[in-house]
């Protein structure tokens, strides 16, 4: 059967070109590798080589033709014993289909959009029941995180931790206290100050089957490692067609600390939540810190686990259970109420909780949702609440533009518009780098009064 020679694409963006010159004429013998034509694109002149062996049966496109489309038939090659008569007895070669569909399947905006390519909504289990009579142990967030890592390291020899000062120094913020003593230097690894390098080493180790916990002294320094987190960790599973993944936890303090200035004070929740392939967790209390860190370590996916330096020393009750693991992707009703929904996460909960207490005194009954996981985001819990209250305020310390709050507002507007009795208000940090001066720092962060004012605005109470 005669072979069609097609107009080749000579660059990823080339759509058409000029066939400037034929170097073979009809009847010429060619073997693979022979240059048969010259093609001109807007960028360069390129040679076209024959791929198959045979006789040029027909030059379909004459020399000097401009605007020849990629994949158009430019010549026909006759193989052994074929005569030129064979040409044309075939139906014309079909343009090979581009792998790109005419239009990309629309990403559904709501769970109800039944587009075939819609992501499968995983059903998220609820928190495990804590048996009646379980002892509650007052625990700092710091201890809870350490306990979570220690328990998982005891249970699974493939779990190890690495980072700056995690071993001998016992952690810059003492989160890894005692781990070196219990697990030894093989599994508790001090690294040089080389974030980009050791993040990559962690992802590589995860690809090879280990389960690394990579501690960033603070998430500010993870910016040095951003490429490995986003381009390597988050995308490997997808790019490898599911063959390979990166079961790794990147954890450390995130957000504003106290008086450490612009380069050391910022919240990355919204940044990471932008990235498909990542799971982003930001716990508030100690029980959530423990249960979710254990879940993160077991997760087959790369997890960004955002802690907060200021919360490390706060004490909360943690149930004394053998294996307390919480579901990723499930928000928690921190306080039930009927007048307004306040959604927050991490240290933002401090403002939400205090505001709700004060609001109660004013006769406003606020429901607080602690998001816990930023990605995937538990919209059903938020929407259920908004259906009840009709009003929504979000609270976070991060910058206001493209924030977690604005994402929630967008989705609630799209998915529960009819239930809203007021615009969604977002309380966030100010749109400025974090200043060092004590008075300015206070102004840059959100505060309880701002949350109260937002709640009053959405509830139309003066």
């Amino acid at each position, binding site marked *: 059967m005669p072979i069609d020679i097609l107009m080749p694409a000579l660059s990823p963006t080339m759509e058409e070109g000029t066939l400037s010159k034929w170097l073979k004429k009809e009847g010429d013998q060619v073997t693979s590798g022979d240059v048969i034509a010259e093609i001109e694109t807007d960028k360069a002149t390129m040679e076209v080589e024959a791929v198959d062996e045979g006789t040029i049966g027909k030059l379909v496109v004459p020399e000097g033709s401009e605007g020849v489309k990629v994949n158009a038939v430019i010549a026909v090659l006759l193989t052994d014993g074929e005569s030129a008569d064979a040409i044309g007895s075939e139906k014309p070669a079909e343009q090979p289909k581009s792998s790109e569909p005419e239009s990309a399947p629309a990403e559904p905006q709501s769970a109800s959009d039944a587009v075939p390519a819609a992501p499968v909504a995983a059903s998220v289990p609820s928190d495990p029941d804590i048996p009646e009579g379980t002892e509650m142990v007052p625990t700092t967030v710091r201890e809870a995180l350490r306990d979570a890592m220690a328990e998982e390291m005891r249970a699974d020899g493939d779990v190890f931790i690495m980072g700056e000062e995690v071993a001998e120094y016992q952690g810059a913020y003492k989160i890894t206290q005692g781990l070196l003593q219990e697990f030894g230097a093989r599994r508790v690894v001090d690294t040089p*100050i080389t974030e980009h390098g050791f993040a990559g080493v962690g992802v590589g180790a995860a690809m090879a089957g280990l389960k690394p916990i990579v501690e960033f002294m603070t998430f500010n320094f993870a910016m040095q490692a951003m490429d490995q987190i986003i381009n390597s960790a988050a995308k490997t599973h997808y790019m490898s067609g599911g063959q390979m993944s990166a079961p790794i936890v990147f954890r450390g303090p995130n957000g504003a600390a106290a008086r*450490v200035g612009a380069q050391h004070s910022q919240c990355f929740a919204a940044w990471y939540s932008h990235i498909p392939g990542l799971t982003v967790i930001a716990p508030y209390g100690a029980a959530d810190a423990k249960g979710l860190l254990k879940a993160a370590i077991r997760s087959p996916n790369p997890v960004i686990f955002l802690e907060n330096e200021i919360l490390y020393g706060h004490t909360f009750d943690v149930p004394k259970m053998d294996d307390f693991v919480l579901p990723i992707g499930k928000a928690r009703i921190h306080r039930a109420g009927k007048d307004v929904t306040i959604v927050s996460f991490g240290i933002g909960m401090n403002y939400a909780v205090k505001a709700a207490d004060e609001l109660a005194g004013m006769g406003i009954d606020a429901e607080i949702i602690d998001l816990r996981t930023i990605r995937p985001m538990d919209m059903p819990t938020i929407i259920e609440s908004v259906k009840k209250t009709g009003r929504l305020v979000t609270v976070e310390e991060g910058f206001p533009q493209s924030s977690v709050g604005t994402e929630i507002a967008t989705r609630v507007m799209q998915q529960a518009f009819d239930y809203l009795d007021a615009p969604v208000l977002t309380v966030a940090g100010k749109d400025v780098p974090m200043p060092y001066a004590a*008075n300015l720092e206070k102004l840059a962060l959100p505060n309880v009064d701002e949350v109260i004012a937002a709640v009053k605005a959405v509830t139309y109470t003066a």
Partner: protein
Amino acid sequence: MAPRKNAASPNRSGVAKTTKTRSAKTAKPVIGTEIAEFDRDQEIAAYREMLLIRRFEEKAGQLYGMGFIGGFCHLYIGQEAVVSGIKLAMKDGDQMITAYRDHGHMLACGMTPRGVMAELTGRQSGYSHGKGGSMHMFSKEKHFYGGHGIVGAQVSLGTGLGFANRYSDNGNVSVVFYGDGASNQGQVYESFNMAELWDLPVVFIVENNRYAMGTSVSRASAQTDFSQRGVSFNIPGHQVDGMDVRAVKAAAEAALEHSRSGKGPIILEMLTYRYRGHSMSDPAKYRSKDEVQKMRSEHDPIEQVKVRLLEKGWASEDELKAIDKSVREIVADSAEYAQNEPEPDPSELYTDIVL
């Protein structure tokens, strides 16, 4: 603690090492071994400069304890000879850039103790109007480019200053300070390559104070001779006794001359030591009290000058006490000022974000 491999000690014996490079450019092999001859005035000036840094840092430590300074505060005590000696060799127009352990560098650049201290207390009259704090201060006038909180980042920035010098052919050299810990960041090597490739006038100063936070050099570095870290880029490097201000000055002069004359970058590793914890919150359990004490009593940079001044009869105890007194007065004045100046006006929150 693991033993240091090719441990460098700030002891003068045998510290000099010259990089063997395949490049035709060879640096004078004396760099690192030579000691500048100081006359009386130079010794007195160096003494005064280093004492100012030390007293200033001691005061900053006190103010931190009193709650006037917050956040991170990294003191330079013990390392005074490094920046003082280098500054003595720099010309007007040469730039300086460093990390967060920057108070000494700013004072050496001629920034005012009042302005620096007021920034430490977060006041309007501080160099950054209170918005930068200890780690982030700048002075365009004094060619001090900060004051950077991200370990290693200043090395690329400083290389960029060198790029600008070369671009405008202004004869200036960029002097880039970074730590032994920072020496392991990837961008340091990316910068080395560009600096040598383009013959940029940059002097890289590694302040090897033996620790990066709680990690000793040998626990973090495969090659602990930081002067040799430029070998694969053909950048010459030398180790220098960073506790002797005269040795620092001599090496810096040669290095600056090298870079200024168009021969490209050069590395000086300053063997030094920090007496205090990494920052105010560091209990420094990773080293023994003896180790610190030994450095203080045998290698103190200020004490060395003092002994020379007295031995040579260039100054009496009383004269030195008078210098100390005047330095203390300057520092006390800056502290007084920094505690009483107003905080920035709330409207400052939204200024200086974009032009």
